[in-house]
């Protein structure tokens, strides 16, 4: 009687799985140092552009290197800000010779690309590096900043639900499957809807994912640029058109399109 356990021809991830996936969002996000330092901290999660980030890539110039027995601390600057990057010495699991070679190259005034995990400790954002390497082709620097702009623009303009599946193809930055395209092209696919209806529908699709969906008053409150009467009219129209359905009572609605 469980719908999920039924025929089993299409395995649809349960809501739990989806939530876990959201939490374990391991997409590598390119950032500027300013974006990293200004990341919002909530419950040990760092948010950039309202999206959880943990693995990031930054590129910049080494200002200073502090060397101790257990770690190297680099102060890296990329013209947007200065950030502390820790690279721990993990003896044994690295090819020490390559590491030593690299570290010799990474003196002051070297451009480097860092991949690591963004952490917040006592209101300070730091980066714990998995890998640091010198940049040999300066086009990489340009590419990094372009990609940062692209990803940020993409994340802020499209829905969070689509951004959880984001992860651009690293080489081209072009989305890979139809799912994301679908989210972006929603406007085209629901061509007969007005812009207010689209806005309201999108709000329900993004925020009304629980069993009850959303109360109409909360939508009116959230979409304060639209008049309450217009929101109500849009909800009525969307319900009649089968884009929304009422859940526990006539004031709660949910999108039929949410997964």
């Amino acid at each position: 009687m469980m719908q999920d356990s039924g025929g089993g021809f299409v395995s649809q991830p349960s809501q739990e799985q989806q939530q876990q996936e959201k939490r374990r969002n391991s997409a590598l996000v390119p950032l500027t140092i300013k974006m990293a330092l200004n990341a919002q901290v909530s419950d040990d999660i760092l948010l950039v552009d309202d999206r959880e980030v943990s693995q990031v890539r930054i590129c910049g110039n080494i200002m200073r290197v502090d060397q101790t027995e257990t770690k190297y601390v680099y102060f890296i600057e990329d013209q947007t800000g200065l950030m502390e990057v820790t690279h721990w010495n993990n003896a044994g699991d690295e090819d020490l010779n390559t590491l030593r070679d690299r570290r010799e190259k990474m003196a002051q005034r070297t451009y480097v690309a860092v991949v690591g995990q963004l952490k917040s400790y006592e209101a300070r954002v730091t980066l714990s590096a998995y890998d640091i390497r010198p940049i040999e082709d300066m086009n990489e620097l340009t590419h990094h900043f372009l990609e940062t702009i692209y990803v940020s623009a993409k994340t802020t303009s499209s829905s969070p639900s689509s951004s959880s599946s984001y992860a651009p193809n690293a080489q081209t930055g072009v989305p890979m499957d139809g799912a994301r395209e679908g989210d972006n092209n929603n406007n085209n696919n629901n061509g007969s809807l007005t812009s207010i209806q689209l806005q309201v529908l999108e709000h329900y699709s993004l925020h009304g994912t629980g069993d009850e969906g959303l109360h109409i008053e909360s939508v009116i409150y959230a979409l304060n640029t639209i008049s309450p009467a217009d929101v109500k009219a849009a909800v009525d129209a969307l319900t009649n058109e089968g884009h929304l359905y009422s859940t526990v009572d006539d004031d709660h609605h949910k999108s039929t399109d949410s997964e």
Partner: protein
Amino acid sequence: MQPAAKKAKKVNLKVNFAGGEMSEKEEKERYANRKNCGRRACEGLNVHLEKRALWEDLGTRSGSSRFEFERVAEVEAYRYMFAPPSARCSALGARLEEEEGMIACEGLTGKLNKESLIMDTGEARVRLDMSGVGAWSCFPGQVVRARGSMEEGVLRVEEMVAPTARAPRSNASEARRYASMQNHKPLAVWCAAGPYTTNDNLDFLPLNDLLEAVSTQAPDVLVLCGPFVDEKHPLPLKIGDDFVDPFTLFAVKVAWRLADSPPTKIVLVPSPTDAIAHSVFPQPPLSDRKDPKFATWDQDLRVGTLDLPAHVACVSNPAVFRINEIVVGVATDVLFDLASEEKSKGMGDAPRVPRLAGHLLAQRSFYPLVPAVSMPLDLGRLDSLRMPPLDVLLVPSKLAVFATPVDHVVVVNPGPLAKGAYGGAFAQLTIHPLTTLSSSPSEEEEEAVLHKVPERTRVDIVRI
């Protein structure tokens, strides 16, 4: 602390979003305190036509029946998850005729959109370019014929033709016989769908109220669609203080209350979210699942017994049955899945839900979506989803209630009878006999006549 202050604190006030405040007691009786009982939930259809008169005024001799009831198509009981991949593949292939293909989405996951449209002909998959088609409406699994030119593996579609629905016909003499059986008076068919109890109790109050109305107004047929024991109901199943199994709950709270309903013919349709039904779609009729090893708290009631009275007919989901000449199809909840998958362009102001229902009719299938969305669908049983020509299509759904003519078919969504802690709605169809509207005495007796049900059917969707 002052005793008065203490008391005030104890009255647990819950702020409701609409601005008012509700005490706990009021909240517990939200259904009982409803104020919209009996109001229309939507415009309905042909409300200028008359409703059927009371049973006593129909001039029916006692003991004689006003209509014939016949099962036209039914799903038989089967063991699910036994269809091998080859059988599922060939079942999908069997949907296609020559020059036809099935719409699919390019990505394995994700929704359809104009960039990801693919047509699967069984032998090849072709990407479709719809830029040349002004208006289209597609969903995955839709069987279509497309005409256009191939360019670099992409079919530039110029014209897309979906199959069309057929209309049922009867011969005139039969129709006349049915009309006289009805004493030239209309038939009343009511339809309601589960859940039948609000989510804050297991008292089945909305069902009681519906059955009350049935016993006073005596419709000819009452179609009750599942879920009867909703597997999503938040409370543990109990009668009084005893925990019970879903079958016992159904027997005591539903079946026993159907006992004194004659002359109304009651038809039960299962739902995939029903705790007492076969969980895979298509579903065979509700039936006992007796296990003699266990007795319940009531010695006479064995676990797994539905204990339905004999005059109640259990049909499958989907099911097709005939009430005199009227062919009725019923399936739950297929429209919702279609609403979540269908994408369209350029359809203008044409309302969407009739279009979705039209897809079911045109595809001649009770569940044309491939892959299935929320339904646990057994592809080995695709055959039993075939839809014969219909006059009335009952599609209970979570979507907004409606009654609308689509082609020659009256499509009705009565909505659930209980919605959260509140009451829902149910549908009352009044179907006038054929001859009162199409009086063409010159007609040959044996000529097949169209039923024209949308012209002679009044539908009211009423709040419980």
